């Protein structure tokens, strides 16, 4: 597992899953763990990728995209999940589909204590608002988990958060 956790291919597989499923808007607050996905989304002409000033904007953008007939994905780091709480009432009230991919901080080999509270609170914050949470620790199943989230969101009208664990993403380098 530690070997697979360090192979980068899973990030490309996740991107290709978004491509195959006709995801047309990729909205994000950047995170190092999402950087390859973000770069590939910007390079893909069939996708419109754009940065948000705060994560809750992305929740609203996803709803607008769906009203206009497009599928989308919201990328963020765990520290941004709390910012989304009230906006997620759009999903509960209107049953908008949501796929959000969240890179975890503050849970494994963390150097920055400021990441810990929101990292720890991430699953509960989603669940508080009715978003279903799945966790990916093994890179071998990452793309399949994203596929399942897309199926559940756009097939069964669900709001799904996929958390990519900090162990999967690897240690952040602090010395330079």
């Amino acid at each position: 597992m530690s070997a697979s956790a360090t192979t980068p291919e899973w990030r490309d597989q996740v991107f290709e899953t978004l491509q195959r499923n006709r995801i047309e808007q990729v909205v994000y607050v950047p995170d190092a763990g999402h950087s390859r996905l973000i770069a590939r989304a910007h390079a893909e002409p069939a996708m419109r990728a754009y940065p948000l000033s705060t994560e809750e904007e992305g929740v609203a953008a996803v709803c607008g995209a769906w009203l206009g007939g497009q599928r989308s994905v919201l990328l963020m780091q765990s520290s941004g999940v709390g910012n989304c709480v009230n906006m997620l009432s759009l999903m509960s009230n209107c049953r908008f589909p949501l796929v959000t991919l969240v890179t975890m901080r503050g849970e494994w080999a963390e150097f920055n204590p400021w990441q810990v509270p929101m990292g720890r609170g991430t699953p509960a914050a989603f669940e508080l608002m009715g978003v279903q949470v799945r966790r990916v620790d093994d890179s071998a199943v990452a793309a399949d988990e994203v596929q399942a989230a897309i199926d559940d969101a756009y097939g069964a009208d669900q709001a799904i958060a996929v958390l990519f664990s900090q162990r999967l993403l690897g240690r952040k380098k602090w010395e330079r």
Partner: protein
Amino acid sequence: MPTTTDAGQAGGLDRRETVRALLAERTDLLVVTGLGSSTYDVAAAGDHDLNFYLWGAMGGAAMIGLGLALAQPQRPVLVLTGDGEQLMGLGALATIGAQRPANLGIVVLDNGHYGETGMQRSHTAMGVDLVGVARACGFAWAEHVERADQIAGLRARIARREGLGFASVRIAANDPPRVLPSRDGVEIKNRFRRGLGFPTI
């Protein structure tokens, strides 16, 4: 408590007449409304399948408009909201300004007050200029609207999709009788998608 502007003074435009004029001769326009009075104003002008009414999610109207405008580039999208709602999503003006969809217009009905909660004064009554914010965020056009005879031009500009636009319409701080559209979010969403020819799931 000195102020540089007070958008809530008597003498602003009537909000209902303003919105009725903005939505007149509607053809392919898609509309998103901010919670509270803007939602009631748009409902009072006539219900429409392609109105998406917010009853909550404060600060989200403009970003719903962005997602929608990018998905439907051939149709004009109007976000109609209040000063308080837009202030809660001020960062969205930066996000939208960075993308500049030519088919999106944001119109703020600015009375300088939080009308839904007891008419407390808002930032725009204390000198904050939303038009200046929109300009600084790179909107192709951004203007103050203070006269009723400017509304037809504003409507035409949005209909022509001539560039990302923003207008702050100075309206009187009054509280007209409520006209309530459906508050069933699933129904409003599904109706909108059906109206554009999409399946609801």
